[in-house]
């Protein structure tokens, strides 16, 4: 089994009466690019702040490099580079000076500044004040700050935030090269699966403070094969939605004629059709397809689980 660089057990965090995180079990293996996914407000940044000791958990434990964070905070943080939300930059200083501030704080050699500037390709602009930097350059400088101590683990909170498509692609290439060429383990959070699905090796999905999935990308693809979407063209979408929802189906409106239903298998397609017809809804079309990874992510974070076929069979039996 791979060595775990971060491990959390039953992590809870409460802000006032509001429960932000509930029972989080995270396992970040060495050498991975670990995507931490979830919609805005799911608790990603809170989790990262807990991992870095910026917040105190209400319950549960955090282990960094196999040691408990609370007892070995300084030792653990020495091996971590961080970028939390927007980078903390001093706008009146140049990029080089910003790195020098962090270099002095960390007590690392001066040569590291040139090395990290080269990695993030900011040598040309290093002597310009940060207030003249574009958003993408600021993000890259933030990564350079995180890399300064040559850490084993990088914790990056939404590093692609606010970047244009080419900036996102650049960041993706940078992260892959840091992982593959420099051997860094990367833990990065994002609210968009499409942004990181080509980059990550492992991922977890957080929704409303609870972990809905954790595993490799292959494992998520396996899960994806079990989830299918059925587009149903009907005479009355509102009645169809109500009937299917009452029977426990995850339904969403597509347009004025179609609803989308999440089903487990082909057998369920016939049952959905039968259910609608028995309620007097005319079904004029059925389109059965596999759920994409993005749809999978959306369904995990926005909808209930696909209804079990048995539930619909039971309803149909009652009707007949």
């Amino acid at each position, binding site marked *: 089994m791979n060595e775990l660089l971060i491990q959390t057990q039953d992590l809870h965090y409460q802000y006032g009466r509001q429960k932000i995180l509930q029972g989080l079990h995270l396992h970040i293996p060495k050498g991975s690019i670990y995507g931490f996914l979830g919609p805005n407000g799911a608790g990603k940044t809170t989790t990262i*702040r807990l991992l*870095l*000791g*910026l*917040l*105190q958990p209400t319950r549960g434990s955090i282990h960094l490099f196999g040691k408990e964070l609370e007892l070995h905070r*300084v*030792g653990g*943080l*020495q091996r*971590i580079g*961080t970028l*939390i*939300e*927007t980078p*903390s*930059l*001093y*706008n*009146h*200083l140049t990029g080089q*000076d910003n790195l*020098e*501030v*962090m270099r*002095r*704080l*960390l*007590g690392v050699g001066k040569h590291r500044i040139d090395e990290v500037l080269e990695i993030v390709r900011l040598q040309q602009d290093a002597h310009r004040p940060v207030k003249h930097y574009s958003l993408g350059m600021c993000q890259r400088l933030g990564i350079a*700050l995180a890399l300064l*101590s040559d850490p084993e683990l990088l914790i990056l909170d939404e590093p692609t935030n606010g970047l244009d498509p080419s900036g996102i692609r650049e960041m993706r290439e940078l992260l892959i090269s840091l992982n593959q060429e420099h051997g860094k383990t990367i833990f990065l959070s994002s609210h968009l699966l499409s942004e990181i699905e080509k980059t990550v090796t492992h991922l977890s999905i957080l929704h409303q403070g609870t972990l809905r999935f954790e595993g490799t990308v292959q494992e998520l693809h396996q899960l994806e094969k079990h989830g299918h979407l059925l587009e149903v063209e009907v005479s009355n979408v509102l009645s169809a939605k109500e009937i299917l929802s009452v029977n426990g189906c995850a339904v969403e409106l597509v347009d004025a004629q179609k609803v989308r239903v999440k089903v487990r298998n082909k057998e369920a397609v016939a049952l959905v059709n039968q259910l609608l017809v028995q309620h007097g809804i005319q079904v004029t079309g059925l389109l059965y397809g596999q759920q994409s990874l993005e749809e999978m992510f959306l369904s995990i974070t926005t909808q209930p689980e696909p209804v079990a076929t048995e539930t619909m069979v039971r309803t149909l039996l009652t009707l007949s």
Partner: protein
Amino acid sequence: MEATYTFLRCGVSAEALKIKNSWAFWLSLLAPLSIVSMNFLVFYFKGDRILKPGVDPWFTFAGNNFTATAQLLAPMFLALITALVNGIEHHANGWKQLYAAPMPRWMVFLNKYLLVLGLVLLTFCTFCLGLFAAGYLLGWLKPALGFQYYDHVQSISLGGFRVFIGSLFIFTLQFCISYRFKSIGLSIGLGILFIMAFLIGSRWEYIGYYPYSWPYFSASAFYMKASAVFVPQMWYSLGSSIALLVLAICHSVKKQVQ
């Protein structure tokens, strides 16, 4: 112990770089020089009317500088410099980066505190040096005033030291306020409010217990011929600033960085 020293050296050095190209450093030099220059101009143009012939001019000149500094400049400057330095961190949203750095949490507060304390010390040194320079320059430009016949390096340095110690609590309090609150306006505004309270209540019999009066009472010792090095208000200031510093460090260790 060695690790603590290394953390402090690295931390204060990093903090020092943050004030590069900012107003904080220049304010530390210009604020004391502004008081000294104004007094210089007053004595240059009207010195013959202010000073009695044959009387030591340094006593009046230094006294005027100390009074203005202790009553207004020191508290105002302390409110401003602490707000400016902590404002740099608030503006950069840098607390999360500092508290996630591999150093003990109490160092974050102490590093910044020591840097600003260094700036305040620089201000008082500049003030004393400026005062000597202005006095000797008056002696050269206006020999009739008689500055060149007297020498008061020791008593003026002691006066500067007294105001510095008397201001320590105000410094620590203003530092804590600006460290805690993001709004520069709030910390400066509170500073002005506390100074106003002192000016309004300056005739109150218990005003000597009010922290914003302590620099004034410390400076007043300059006029007393047989005064001890430490007047009571200096002890109050020193003791309460140490107590507040310890409390603030303990509080900063538990700081939750949202």
